[in-house]
């Protein structure tokens, strides 16, 4: 397989990366708002022919009568704005940033980009820095900061977070729902494990990936990160684990664009350096890969943003493209495992929604049943907000039902917050496809 990756072999149709490097000079960020202060939704909103198809795809509008839907949030809001001194409507805070409207629009209106920017403007101009909502959102958006503190004393934190008095306080003081149990912090983070193991076990000059683990695999589910490392090493890859910050997903969703920009700048710098070293970027969380691939180039233009976007892959997608993953799975088996698979909205957006099901079809002993195209409803930090909890569960109801109907007692998904929701709604244990690959392919 490695010959297919030889950069000189330009005729090779398997060499995905042939056209993948984008010259930064040639790259122009899509300037939806022109100057960031000056809201200019014009290019996108002129493309909208008001067919309302996007509204039929929006999971929030489906259950929340107060939410006017993506067509209003995007193109119509701008039209109003153009007419006069119209402020961004606060309903943009109810958009969960699932990005489903993007896929529905037949006219390429950049809806989620409009929502992200509008949300940024709303938070900047419309939300008091002292309000409970702002403080709470800022905390949720900066989960990594919390997680870093929490995981220094994981047992104490887990105890406190699981404590009902603390949960009630969270709800009363901060508006964080007490219905959910906080995810447990791992006693050893992924990075701690990585260091104690002495870093990479495989060295290679021509097969190299940089792993963007994100916050969740680091602090909460290091097993997913370890699975990623072991699976890639089993295919002969040298894995790099560059320094990194939050991908920004929760920050975009909460309109904290300044926070997101700071985090993105660090990530782009570190990942661009890894690319210089010959690595491609892989991520195990579909929201992280989506953020690096789509939101960064839509919203920022640091040097290297475009090449980071073009060289980032979801981890399993990467193996499927560059290795004979299908063949490897056909040659292995695991002990009888059935999964109820939910495709995260952000996997849909990257065109990899059916991948896990297709792969497990090849693996003896495992099978995955797709529980349908509905949204899980949690959308990152959204479902944690006390006032959004009911909406979140109403959106999730269809998925819970389909999970119960499936012949499986274990859930499967690429997104850590979808996993939380799946677990919360059904009590199932939920795994990441990489963990299944590890069980099948790594001794």
């Amino acid at each position, binding site marked *: 397989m490695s010959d297919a990756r030889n950069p000189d072999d330009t005729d090779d*149709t398997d060499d995905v990366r042939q*056209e993948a490097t984008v010259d930064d000079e040639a790259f122009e960020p899509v300037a939806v708002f022109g100057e960031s202060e000056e809201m200019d939704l014009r290019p996108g909103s002129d493309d909208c022919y008001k067919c309302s198809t996007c509204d*039929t795809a929006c999971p929030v509008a489906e259950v929340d009568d107060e939410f006017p839907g993506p067509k*209003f949030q995007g193109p119509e809001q701008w039209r109003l704005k153009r007419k006069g001194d119209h402020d961004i409507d606060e309903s943009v805070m109810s958009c969960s940033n699932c990005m489903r409207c993007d896929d529905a629009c*037949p006219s390429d209106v950049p809806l989620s980009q409009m929502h992200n920017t509008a949300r940024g403007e709303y938070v900047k101009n419309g939300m008091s820095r002292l309000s409970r909502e702002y403080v709470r959102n800022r905390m949720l958006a900066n989960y990594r900061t919390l997680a870093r503190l929490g995981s220094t004393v994981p047992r104490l934190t887990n105890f406190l977070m699981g404590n009902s008095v603390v949960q009630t306080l969270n709800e009363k003081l901060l508006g964080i729902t007490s219905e959910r149990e906080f995810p447990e912090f791992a006693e050893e983070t992924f990075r701690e494990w990585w260091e104690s193991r002495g870093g990479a076990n495989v060295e290679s000059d021509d097969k190299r990936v940089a792993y963007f683990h994100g916050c969740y695999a680091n602090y909460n589910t290091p097993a997913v990160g370890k699975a990623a490392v072991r699976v890639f090493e089993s295919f002969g890859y040298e894995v790099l684990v560059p320094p990194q910050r939050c991908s920004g997903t929760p920050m975009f969703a909460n309109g904290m664009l300044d926070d997101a920009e700071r985090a993105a700048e660090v990530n782009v710098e570190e990942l661009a350096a890894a690319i210089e070293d010959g690595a491609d970027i892989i991520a195990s969380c579909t929201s992280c890969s989506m953020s690096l691939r789509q939101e960064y180039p839509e919203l920022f233009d640091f040097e290297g943003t475009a090449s980071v976007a*073009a060289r980032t892959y979801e981890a399993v997608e990467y193996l499927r493209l560059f290795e004979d993953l299908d*063949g490897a799975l056909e040659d292995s088996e695991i002990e009888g495992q059935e999964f109820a698979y939910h495709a995260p909205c952000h996997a849909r957006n990257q*065109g990899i929604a059916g991948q896990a099901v297709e792969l497990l079809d090849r693996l003896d002993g495992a099978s995955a049943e797709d529980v349908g195209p509905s949204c899980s409803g949690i959308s990152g930090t959204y479902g944690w907000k006390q006032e959004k909890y009911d909406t979140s569960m109403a959106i999730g109801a269809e998925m819970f039902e389909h999970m119960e109907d499936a012949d499986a007692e274990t859930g499967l998904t690429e997104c850590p917050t979808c996993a939380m929701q799946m677990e919360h709604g059904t009590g199932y244990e939920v795994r990441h496809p990489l963990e299944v690959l590890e069980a099948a392919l790594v001794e």
Partner: protein
Amino acid sequence: MAIEDDVLVIGGGLAGMTAALAAAREGAGVRVVSHKESTLRSASGLVDVLGYPPERAPGSASGDADPGASVRGEDENADPAARSRRERAADGPLVDPFEAIPDLPESHPYRRVGVEGVRDALDLFDDAVGDRYRGGHTDRNALVPTHGGRIKPTARYPASAAAGLASDDRPALLVGFETVTDFDAPLAAAHLESAGVPFAARGVTVRFPGGFRADARLTRFADALDSNERVEIGGSGGSYTESLPAREALAEVVKDRLRGEQRVGFPALLGQHDAAGVRESLEAELGAAVFEVPMGPPSLPGLRLEGALVSACRDAGVRFSTGNPVVGYETATGPGGDGEIAAVRVDRNGASVPFHAESFVLATGGLVGKGIDSDREGVKEPIFDCHVSHPSDRYDWFEDETFGDHPFARFGVETDDDLRPLDSRGALEFPNLRACGAVLGGYDFAAEKSGAGVSLATGRAAGLAAAREGLEA
């Protein structure tokens, strides 16, 4: 190593899904790669085969319009140009589309697949959608009232529209809702009567019961009826409110307005997942037949049809990769390559990802689906750069009259009888590429009312041929 299938279909619209279904049922491993959701969500959900004969000679005068004289088709979604072209085709709607197919111009896509090809495709369709659709009992076009109060000749219609046919002489009450402004029931009823339908039509406008917001989406009403959620309604005199299940509440509102009509038509919003159940409840409450009038986008019948076809495809084992566009292709190199397509490239947010297959089907739609692109330079098929014949002078794309017979409506890819695209000299573009649906040239689906029919017939044929080739390899 990449992703590899026997047949790869580009485009997830009606044509693409039909091709995929036909190929998968032959036993081929099939994948659909589609950029966006299909345009079915915006389409009326009617399946037209041929409503009007095409203009005999494009551009020639074909009789003056005589509005209102006879039952005449209309499509509110079509542009005014298409409407006028149709009105100039004063022959009126076709009674039997199958009879007319052999007389179509040689360049028409139906001529590639023949009458039998069209029939077989409808069989495939009927089998895939089951009792959700009607019309298969006859070759003759059904006449379905549309939301503007026109009559549309069509070959298959949703079961929900069955009680509304214009050939039925039972008096009808049309019910519109204050907030659903696309359907003006009194006006639609008046249009129907002036078009000479054989029944009395009356229209009323009511308020949909319950506290729905003024700009509530059609899907919101459909959901409320699906789940029969309780809605608040004002009691008599407005002095108190009570809560009723949505279906019952809606029937209550309509009951008082009935004057002995035996059938009641609503805009198409009667449920998304349980449309049959919603109609049944309403019919029981009202003591009259209930039907839906197809609406413009977004369209519930279109959404339901999309859902039915996607599940038929999934059941047949079709895989879907949706969300990113195909932007280019690779040809096989080395011995035996002979110009075949080896893979297409999908742009995933900047990364270019190959999808390999033995055989490929181009089903990317026309100017609406973005399968045909036009700019100042000309008209082109953007993925494979297949030849699209068009006058080199932009001014020749349009008639002088605004509502004239514009050649651009017929722009598209030309093929051989096996639906393989041809270059400007009439040679094959690629041996293993077929095209189907609105990306094809040689017909004007808005004017002749053949949109879904051409997609089904050419989709099936392309899918079968691709499966044959894919399985052979």
